[in-house]
């Protein structure tokens, strides 16, 4: 998705629908990761990770108490960086 819009900057201008659908795609990817680390690794899938031990307990416990928070941080900064770039690709950034 990055390459497409970079190759055709002229077309990208005024393509608000294209901008929005790219945004929705980025949001969806981020939210899937968001759900997998917290509800997945931290809660529902914890039994599957019980074989991997981390400091006296298992990886699921680490995800529930620390890991998911670190991933959340990465997701928000990635999204901010990616969207601010997308704004410029589509020429919809603020003046």
């Amino acid at each position, binding site marked *: 998705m990055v390459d497409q819009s970079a190759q055709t900057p002229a077309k990208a201008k005024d393509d608000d629908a294209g*901008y929005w659908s790219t945004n929705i795609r980025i949001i969806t990817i981020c*939210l899937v990761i968001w759900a997998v680390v917290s509800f997945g690794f931290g809660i529902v899938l914890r039994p599957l990770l019980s074989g991997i031990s981390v400091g*006296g*307990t298992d990886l699921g416990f680490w995800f*529930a*108490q620390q890991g998911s928070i670190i991933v959340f941080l990465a997701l928000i*900064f990635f999204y*901010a960086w990616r969207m601010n770039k997308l704004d410029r690709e589509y020429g919809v950034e*603020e003046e």
Partner: protein
Amino acid sequence: MDQFTLNLLFVGASFALYIGIAVWARAGSTSEFYAAGRGVHPVTNGMATAADWMSAASFISMAGLIAFTGYDNSSFLMGWTGGYVLLALLLAPYLRKFGKFTVSEFIGDRFYSKTARLVAVICLLVASITYVIGQMQGVGIAFGRFLEIDTTWGLLIGSCVVFAYAVFGGMKGVTYTQVAQYCVLITAYTIPAVFISLQLTGNPIPALGLFGEHTASGEPLLAKLDQIVRDLGFAEYTAAHGSTINMVLFTLSLMIGTAGLPHVIMRFFTVPKVSDARWSAGWTLVFIALLYLTAPAVGAMARLNISELMWPNGTDAAAVSVEQIENDPEYAWMATWQKTGLLDWEDKNGDGMIQYYNDANADLQAKAEANGWTGNELTKFNRDILVLANPEIASLPGWVIGLVAAGGLAAALSTAAGLLLAISSAVSHDLLKGQLTPNMSEKSELMAARISMAAAIVVAVILGLNPPGFAAQTVALAFGLAAASIFPALMMGIFSTRINNVGAVAGMLAGLVVTLLYIFLHKGWFFIPDTNLFTDADPLLGPIKSTSFGAIGALVNFIVAFTVAGMTKETPQEIKDLVESVRIPRGAGAAAADH
């Protein structure tokens, strides 16, 4: 210098700092009162939002709930941070682009309906007031401890301080004081945790110490803790005990609620640009994560310390003696906290020792009988005192204890002030100026804002005297209410052009009513004790506790809104255009000009 004077000194100095800043940055116009003239840098805004966000629930209460429950309460950690992902991705940039002051203004304009705005105001008030109750609980405990009085008096004195403080400045005063409060609270939270982590694991970073090695035994810290609590008949710390469904729903409720709370969302109206709103959410979470990565370590290490203090020679030897509790300076904290009425012990079997164990555990009955124990003798240990008592439990120097008292008050005060601001703007700006008396002057609008703050405090104090749970649990209820009412309306308003005025109003009302009903059924009508029909130990719907219901309420909201919108008139074209424009950052600056 004795501990009482030291506490007063720290608390007094921090207050002088906040009030100084509030007076220096006193709000003049209504625009400054609500949104600080939109001149706040994302990092500054992030820090202030973090202080606003991390309340008595995060600072005072959360680690205690984790300490005594272990893994099952990880929901608080994931829920109260994961919500920022939703906020950053789904709401913040668009609400900033829309460019008004309050959440209900957005809902009123997007759903082209005064009724929608009114319903949004009601939802905000219900959620915010429930939230303030939790804060006042925290304020009461903190004041009770550092003045060494009963928590009821602590609550009354604290509420006067909160009121005086919130009325002084509006958002601008609050923004810069909250930066100062963040610095105080994060220092106060981290320093004792570093000391304790060094004592127990030799690692200066508590978050790493939690997964490190317990120096005294050579075992991993969490394995050691699991073993001690198991020996005392309690549930294993790192294992899952509750229902998985409930844990998922509870975590989800806290996440959605985070993204639906007015005093947090309002923050993102105050950054200069849409791109800043995206960064701002990230910076906020950075500052929150500093505390949230430390909190589970604080909880686990405190649980270990308490267990070892009660069983100084190991769980198989004799328990701590009453004489030692009364005379040994290491146990002085127990007498101090007894004065607040939140900690108590009783030598039930008269053997001169205090046995702390789980007397409800059948497996421990034989051991108890053989040793002549007649029940758990640490009869009361309120979860909410753990963080404040933690430095004393670990025998840290007096100045650390004073610092923690100041930090706890900073956390409770900053959030209470932010919430009161959200409540007062909902009443004066949305209810009075927006609906009832549109020609109101700026001066009387500010007056109305202050009167509504006072009214909100009175309600919160009355309800805070008989709280529906520990501070973090009360706050969790507020999140459930915000999750069920506000978040779905905001999200549908941005991501769907199909939802019309009737759909949004029906959705919000359905979500709010069904969640409020479920909470009242379990916690008593208007939180009045003994009027509940069910308990969270045996909830109405399978494993779903009242604190977890927000996620279900949100689902009800979405379903009702889509169904009703599908049966009624389509959204007008100009509203569809409004939604389209909110989705694109271009031209954000101009939107606020009409205010």
